């Protein structure tokens, strides 16, 4: 009895995917470069998660990130977070984020981010979850979010030397 060629290919693909779960991954869509979309493992019963990434507009026309979500969530919204006098401030960004030509927009835990709501299944460390980003011009762009550890304040492969999480450098 021989193994079906397709199934061995599938096993190989699964093995490869499992071997490199936390590696940086990037996407190019027209003039847009999307850098390492990631999220964080969720605590038991959690209904929300955050989504983080970078987008660079290498084109000559302004673009606008208007939202994004993952399949495991009911919906996603763009939010902004800031610290003011020890208080965490949150606000939705209903108009999205403009990405001027040559500009990079960063979504990160300590600032602008995607908030995934109505989570149906927990996110587990090491997995990749399917999702999509919405742009004004580029439309819907499918991406995968790498799930980092529950404690992750930044994607894992970034060097930990610059540990100023929680501080706003005001650039």
């Amino acid at each position: 009895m021989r193994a079906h060629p397709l199934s061995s290919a599938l096993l190989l693909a699964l093995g490869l995917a499992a071997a490199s779960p936390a590696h940086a991954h990037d996407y190019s869509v027209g003039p847009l470069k999307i850098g390492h979309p990631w999220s964080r493992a969720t605590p038991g019963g959690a209904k929300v998660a955050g989504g983080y990434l970078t987008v660079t507009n290498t084109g000559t026309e302004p673009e606008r990130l208007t939202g994004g979500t993952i399949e495991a969530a009911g919906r996603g919204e763009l939010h902004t977070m800031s610290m003011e006098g020890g208080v965490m401030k949150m606000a939705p960004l209903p108009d999205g984020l403009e990405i001027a030509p040559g500009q990079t927009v960063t979504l990160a835990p300590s600032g602008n981010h995607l908030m995934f709501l109505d989570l149906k299944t927990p996110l587990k460390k090491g997995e990749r979850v399917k999702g999509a980003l919405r742009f004004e011009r580029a439309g819907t762009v499918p991406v995968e979010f790498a799930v980092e550890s529950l404690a992750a304040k930044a994607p894992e492969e970034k060097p930990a030397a610059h540990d100023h999480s929680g501080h706003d450098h005001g650039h």
Partner: protein
Amino acid sequence: MATDPRPPSPAARRGSTLILAAFALALVGIVAATVAFLPRGDRPSALSVIGGPFRLDSSKGGVVDSQALKGKPFLVFFGFTQCPNICPTTLADLGTLLDTFGAEGGDVQAYYITLDPERDTQAVMQEYMASFTDRITGLTGTPQQIERVARDYRASLKRVPLPGGDYTLEHTLMVYMMDRNGGFAGPLDLNAGHALALKQLRKLVADGRST
């Protein structure tokens, strides 16, 4: 071109006097507000401006009564389970810190009080807190109980509506260090690295032990 070093101009001096006066006024305001908040029946100590007694539902079942914590320093912080960014990372970070402190023989318990008691029931808290060290206990209660404890700890809280009819909460992120008498001993600084935070915990545990 040597000019004599001159004393501050009258205008500058008036400026600093004004600043001093503003500080004095602010201080008077703080003291006045503190005094105004104080008389509330069962408040035992007039000195404990931040903090106060609580009796809340535990994520480990049953209730936690702050009276039972007498003689042991503890940590308190506020959050809610539908908080995507800082709450879970703070819980994970603090958990690692407390486990490290535990490994060197230190025993400090932390209490994570939800500011969203309507959604964060005891069952929700139980499931959520199981993802973190058992040195952190989740607490919930009635909206009135939560309002009371947040007020006692001077935790700021604001409900922010989201487009879908949902809401999120803006709140104080400080981790309160409470001494063995239930008095506020200062904020625990998790951002400056665990070495410093461990020093803070050791001092918290050592303080008042000899008395």
